[in-house]
């Protein structure tokens, strides 16, 4: 934007942004600094003395097998649910953009799951997954004890991945539909004239063009799955059985709030922050690289 297109007041913008800066400072930066501080101290939950611990919390957390297994669980959960949601969304978005009769109704309905919070979905799935009276109970009639998500870790994880993918589907569909729409119509029309089937057009023209976008949706989904899955896990599996579904966000809450180990929990928060920063920076660099390339190509 040219210089003429901007106002020249120096301090007015600071004043305008002040409400948001204050809110962000109070409810974001201060708590974050607090977490950092705690991760370097021995913290008594009721206040009182905070003894400097150096890196002791980091050492203990990184040596804790349950943290490592939680990291693994998080990785499995995040990757599986994000990929599942992405591929389902891609298939459905591809169908939607064929604009078959009634596609608007389908498009509308497919987005409804966005209204359901993780916690609420956890409650619903808890009932749906019940091995005695849930819709899957017939499995147990055929093979006794075959379906027991509260005892079998892999079943609990499958349930969680499935449920979270359900939550993520609407966002992915909306984003992918938007990206498919950004593919110039004349490209597609030309291909159609050449006799390309819708499937060929999707594979040869649209997908390559929206691939960077899919990557972006994937990273956003991955980031979301790190934190937004808390309510779902809390209500659906509670991290169990054992620690089969104890993802990091849940562990942070569990250690900090149930175990009142503020230092250990904060240390995990900081580690999680590092993961999120790395992912975000990757994404940001990728996006700015793509934007630059786009500008070059007009």
């Amino acid at each position, binding site marked *: 934007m040219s210089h003429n297109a901007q106002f020249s007041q120096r301090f007015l913008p600071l004043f305008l942004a002040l409400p948001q800066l204050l809110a962000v400072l109070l409810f974001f930066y201060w708590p974050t600094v607090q977490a950092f501080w705690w991760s370097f101290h021995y913290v008594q939950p009721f206040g009182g003395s905070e003894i400097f611990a150096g890196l002791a919390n980091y050492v203990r957390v990184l040596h804790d097998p349950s943290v490592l297994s939680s990291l693994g669980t998080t990785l499995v959960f995040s990757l599986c649910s994000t990929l599942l949601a992405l591929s389902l969304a891609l298939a459905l978005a591809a169908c939607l953009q064929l604009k078959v009769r009634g596609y608007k109704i389908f498009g509308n309905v497919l987005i409804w799951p966005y209204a359901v919070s993780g916690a609420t979905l956890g409650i619903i799935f808890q009932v749906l997954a019940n091995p005695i009276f849930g819709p899957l109970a017939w499995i147990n009639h055929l093979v006794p004890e075959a379906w027991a998500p509260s005892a079998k870790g892999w079943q609990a994880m499958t349930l969680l991945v499935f449920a979270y993918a359900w939550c993520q589907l609407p966002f992915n569909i909306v984003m992918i539909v938007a990206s498919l729409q950004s593919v110039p119509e004349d490209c597609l029309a030309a291909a159609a004239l050449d006799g390309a089937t819708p499937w060929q057009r999707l594979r040869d023209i649209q997908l390559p063009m929206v691939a960077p976008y899919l990557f972006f949706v994937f990273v956003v989904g991955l980031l979301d799955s790190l934190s937004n899955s808390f309510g779902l896990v809390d209500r659906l599996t509670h991290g169990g059985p*054992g620690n*089969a579904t104890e993802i990091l966000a849940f562990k942070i809450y569990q250690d900090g709030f149930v175990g009142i180990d503020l230092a250990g929990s904060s240390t995990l928060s900081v580690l999680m922050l590092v993961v999120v920063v790395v992912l975000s920076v990757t994404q940001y660099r990728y996006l700015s690289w793509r934007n630059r390339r786009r500008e070059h190509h007009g």
Partner: protein
Amino acid sequence: MRFRSLLSAAIVWVTGAGQAYAADADVEFWYGHSGAAGAAIQDICERFNSTHPQSLPMRCIAQGSYEQNLQKTVAAYRSGKAPALVEIYDVATPEMLDSGAVLGLDGFLQSQHKVSDDPLLPAVAAYYSNADGNVWAQPFATSTAVLYSHADQLAAAGITQAPETWEAFGTALVALKAHGSKCPAVTDLGPWVWLEQSSAVMGAPLLSKDATHWAFDQGLHLRLMEEVEQWMAEGLLIDQAATRSGGQELAFTAGDCALLLGSTGASKLIYSVNPSDVKANLLPVFAGQQRAASLPGGAALWVLRGQSDAQYQTVAEFLMFLRDVSIQTLFSDATGYLPVTQGAATAYLAQLPADSATVVGLNAMTQGDRTTAFEVRPGFITLLRLAWQQAVWSALAGQKPMADALHQAARKGDSLLRVFENTYGPRETDKGVNP
């Protein structure tokens, strides 16, 4: 400017709301119950308020579960908004004792010139006492673990007596299954029963002598958990999630399962269907073993610092009110929790059959000559419980042998002991001087 007036209105609203909240016109009591116990507490509060017009009104607020209540108390205390009185579950006792946030019960009542002629049950009081023998919190919603059985189902399988040993327990399970029971015994595999209470009654030490290491990864507890693993693999001991109701107490009460190791606090529900058929007994021990006392579980009421004199007067009145025999009876009747004073226990026992859960439970806490309190209180028991649970489930899922799993949990517990030590420094028995 409209925006600015809106902003100032918002500021007034925010600060105004804060001030209204800071009023000292009543006394808050936070508790961690819902259902029947929650209703009983509300009832007791109403009775207190109507019979004590000269005191400030007690405001009794349900904060969800025990865990949630503790979380909120911690956070509220840090920001200076804590209640005057709070119910904290047994396992957080070390954290409370060392918190510097509480007033010891004995000293507090003395300073308020309250003397009770009805002392607390020694077994219960010991659990909430420090090394000097001073009681730091008033026991409330106290319970202990017993073995519940359906006499009819046992009899049908040819067993005339509820099992007193783990060996007999195993035999009974096999007999029940052979007789067609789909669920000989049900469990939630909770650490309270399987780790703490079962070790207590067997006199199996949870901690090493010098209290530097957890010791449950060997000896009797390991032996018991290997039995449990076997029982679960053979379909003799059933995970509660595999029952119709999904809860061990409900499954037992409905008669779906024949045996249950559970809390006396659930006895209200458990006796609700067919009371004459339900029997309560002491938890089993291994054959030939000396029995020791079970632990008083449940919760206790802690007086928090930072309140006004008038509020403390009311708290003292309320604590004495809760000790009243009629109030204790009312609460026990409504919930199944145990009475906590000698007078109330005597009065209550007189009207109950000898095999009721309450009588058995009170009896269980006085078995053997061992003191029921931990010799040294380990910290972070909540986290240790989580570690234990995760270990047991991973063993049951066949990921590793039970011994390895328990060993791993114990070592995690050890590191937590170190952290606790570093956090609170060397033990000070009477931290927190009374007012």
